[in-house]
């Protein structure tokens, strides 16, 4: 039996337009933003939403955008922010993520206690995840 080739499309389908995906992601983010850290609900919800997106992304059910065949030399610019972030994350982590030299997540934790900020960051996480699934 012939295998179904990977789907690739630049034209969004009706259900794949922002008018459909944004409200769904917003709803999921608002729910996720209400769940406190370290709670079983937050664990289940994050693992569940992420797991569903991983499943969608690894199955060939979703149409994908065109992949660039090669990256130009300009791609090297991306090394700069990645390296700066990596150096600070590694440095703060290796020094024990102290209060006076915290890791990124330790800085973010107090901000994420606010449910509105938490929902907004949840939205960014899910949107980026959805973008990866479509790639």
């Amino acid at each position: 039996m012939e295998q179904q080739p990977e789907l690739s499309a630049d034209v969004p389908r009706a259900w794949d337009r922002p008018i459909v995906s944004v409200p769904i992601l917003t709803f999921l983010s608002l729910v996720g933003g209400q769940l406190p850290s370290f709670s079983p609900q937050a664990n289940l919800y994050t693992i569940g939403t992420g797991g569903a997106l991983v499943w969608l992304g690894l199955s060939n059910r979703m149409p994908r955008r065109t992949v660039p065949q090669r990256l130009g030399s300009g791609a090297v610019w991306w090394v700069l922010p990645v390296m700066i972030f990596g150096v600070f994350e590694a440095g703060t982590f290796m020094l024990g993520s102290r209060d006076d030299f915290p890791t990124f997540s330790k800085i973010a934790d107090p901000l994420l206690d606010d449910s509105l900020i938490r929902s907004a960051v949840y939205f960014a996480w899910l949107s980026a995840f959805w973008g990866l699934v479509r790639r």
Partner: protein
Amino acid sequence: MKLLAIGGFTTALLLFVVVEWAARREGSRIPTFGDVCAYVMQYEVGPVPVGRIALFGFWWWMGWHFFAR
């Protein structure tokens, strides 16, 4: 020292925004971050989509790390 850490992370995040902005200009030779991710994600070892699994796994872990743990 705390200000140094905050300053370092803020600089890195601002640079992400600046490079993405530069990449989206017409005729730019810099690929967008999405294109870089897509390029990495097409890496396969035999039939195993190693690039996709790695990026999905990393991003899944990021969400769990910030929202659940």
